[in-house]
């Protein structure tokens, strides 16, 4: 049963259809369609209750790759991790990777994902040169920034609603090897984060900060600034960091959440202490970009009731006081978990009509599902995000209000004109009651 990553909401689909052949037409069904890649988005953008899910993982072939220019043509169901495995040894890297490699290229486009290099590279969609879109009227349309440009802009960040993405042409970036030069710099409070971010953020192509969302008072917003860049060519004969897939999975849903006030506090304190001593080092790209991929089903630690992720972006002019207010509210609630992430977005415009990243700062945290307690906290956070002129990330959302969506994505009405009439999702119906 396909779910989203936070396992909320639980919905039933009328049909699941595995796609294998990118040249085949859309299946004949009378229920609304939606592509489902690997279910790593949160909430309901990848769900379609009562409808049909088109499972795209069988459409995972590479089509052409130009080893001189780094231009890759591939089917949309291939996962980023599957691309990284062969492209890095050949000297190429994906231009943008989010916090997990287990998402499909189609999903990366549909949510216009961002990575630690947003301030220099922008979103994933910026590196898409061309896409083929299969529409329910039988048309197979080539779209690019110059051909069917409006449909292209609607499809990037378009939550899979503009038709089925079958093939994608991407521009990769060169990389010398599979190594990253990384540095972890601790900061004792929020002001120190801003100072650090302004001072050295621009020197590193990849930056992200982990925040101790439990710390309060003078320590509010303490954390670790994690910076990285691709390593230069390495001298021969030197022992280099290796990586082997030792990933473990949590085989079943725990009956209750392992995360509570005490375990989270302990984890955060420990992480802060360990990260403080990390300094500058060479690291394999896997643990640097995808630390959580080491535990394949980490979502199960939240137990049967599932969890929420809250990810917002605040425009730059209100970022400082906005983030402070959000963190203070979260710290006093005692509900935050160990995955609090703070990252500045750069100025590069996102190409999609519904793209989430915009100049400013984004904060993301996971929360165990404590029912109304959690929802009351979210309502307060929503007020703060709204008054700062911010937005919530649809790809991480299971509960935002229609007003919040429309305010955060003012182009939603224009976007709606590009939605394929045969496509829909639980999220889209929730936003268009």
């Amino acid at each position, binding site marked *: *049963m396909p779910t989203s990553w936070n396992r909320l909401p639980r919905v039933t689909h009328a049909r*699941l*259809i*595995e796609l*294998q*052949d990118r*040249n085949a037409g859309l299946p004949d069904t009378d229920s609304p369609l939606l592509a489902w890649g690997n279910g790593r988005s949160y909430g309901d953008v990848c769900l379609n209750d009562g409808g049909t899910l088109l*499972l795209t993982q*069988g459409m995972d*072939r*590479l*089509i*052409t*790759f130009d*080893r001189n220019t780094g231009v890759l043509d591939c089917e949309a169901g291939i996962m980023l991790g599957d691309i990284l495995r*062969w492209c890095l*040894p*050949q000297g190429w890297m994906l231009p943008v990777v989010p916090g997990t490699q287990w998402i499909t290229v189609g999903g990366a486009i549909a949510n216009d994902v961002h990575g630690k290099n947003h301030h220099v590279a922008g979103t994933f969609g910026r590196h898409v040169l061309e896409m083929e879109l299969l529409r329910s009227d039988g048309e197979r349309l080539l779209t690019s920034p110059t051909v069917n440009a409006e449909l292209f802009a609607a499809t990037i960040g378009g939550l899979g609603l503009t038709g089925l993405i079958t093939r994608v042409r991407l521009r990769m970036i060169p990389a010398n090897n599979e190594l990253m030069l990384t540095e972890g710099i601790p900061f004792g409070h929020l002001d120190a984060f801003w100072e650090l971010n302004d001072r050295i953020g621009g020197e590193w192509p990849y930056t992200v900060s982990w925040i101790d969302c439990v710390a309060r008072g003078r320590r509010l917003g303490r954390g670790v600034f994690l910076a990285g860049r691709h390593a230069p060519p390495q001298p021969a004969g030197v022992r280099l960091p290796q990586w082997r897939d030792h990933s473990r999975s949590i*085989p*079943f849903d725990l009956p209750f959440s392992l995360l509570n006030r005490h375990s989270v506090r302990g984890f955060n304190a420990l992480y802060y202490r360990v990260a403080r001593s990390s300094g500058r080092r060479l690291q394999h790209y896997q643990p640097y970009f995808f630390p959580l991929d080491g535990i394949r089903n980490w979502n199960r630690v939240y137990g049967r009731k599932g969890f929420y992720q809250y990810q917002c972006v605040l425009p730059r002019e209100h970022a400082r006081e906005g983030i402070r207010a959000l963190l203070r509210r979260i710290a006093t609630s005692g509900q935050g978990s160990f995955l609090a992430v703070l990252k500045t977005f750069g100025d590069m415009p996102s190409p999609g009509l519904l793209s989430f990243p915009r100049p400013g700062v984004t904060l993301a945290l996971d929360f165990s599902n404590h029912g109304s307690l959690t929802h009351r906290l979210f309502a307060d956070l929503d007020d703060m995000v709204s008054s700062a002129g911010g937005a919530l990330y649809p790809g991480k959302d299971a509960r935002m209000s229609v007003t919040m969506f429309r305010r955060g994505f003012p182009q939603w009405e224009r976007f709606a004109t590009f939605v394929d009439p045969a496509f829909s999702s639980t999220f889209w119906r929730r936003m268009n009651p």
Partner: protein
Amino acid sequence: MNATPRRIVIFGATSRIATETARLWLARGVHLVVVARSPERLRMLSDDLSIRSGGLAEVDAVAADLEDLDALPALWDSLTQRFDDLDGVLIAHGNLPDQARCESDSQAMLRAIRVNALSAMTLLTAIANDFEKRKRGVIGVIGSVAGDRGRKSNYVYGAAKGMLTLFLQGLRNRLHGSGVAVVTLKPGFVITPMTQDFERDGLLWARPEAVARGIVQAFARRRDVVYLPWFWRPILWVIRMIPEPVFKRLSL
């Protein structure tokens, strides 16, 4: 002996499990000959494999209708003439028939037996003699846990895979000592297009990549009978132990 073959033919190479297996073998430097019905899907597969290997791999594609039993001995002959160093075969083609249809239509039932058992056995007859003469090689065939005991929900498919299992048992016995390994691969529930109409929920469902890893390992270790994943072995042991007077009442 512990060595993966150097050049492997995969029959039914465009299936999910076979494709994943081909990608793993390729990463280990194995030369591949991929056989399937659709020339277009074969070309898509070989392009994919070639890019993954950085253009270094040797992948040859041969389109053939594996349900045309009369043509299979000649197909094998042409393969051995083109590739004189073949030392591995993976037979992966087959499909899940509609059990209800097979109960009402004997032609549908016979087709299911042909594609899931007779086709592989026809190929194996030619392959076995050839490998026996050369005194080396690994022959792996994808059977199924469904072949371990007949059940009302899919006994036609089960009968075909069961026939294949028995055939492979005998062949393994015959080729023992000849240097040729015969590997029976028995996947359980795998998330592939073949099983899209099932409720695919729960711990028993495996991803095709995991099954492919098991196949690669079974070839390298020249195993006899492998359940994929391993936990199906004790499950099927229990299922086989249930006395028939009890079993016939069950809905498993």
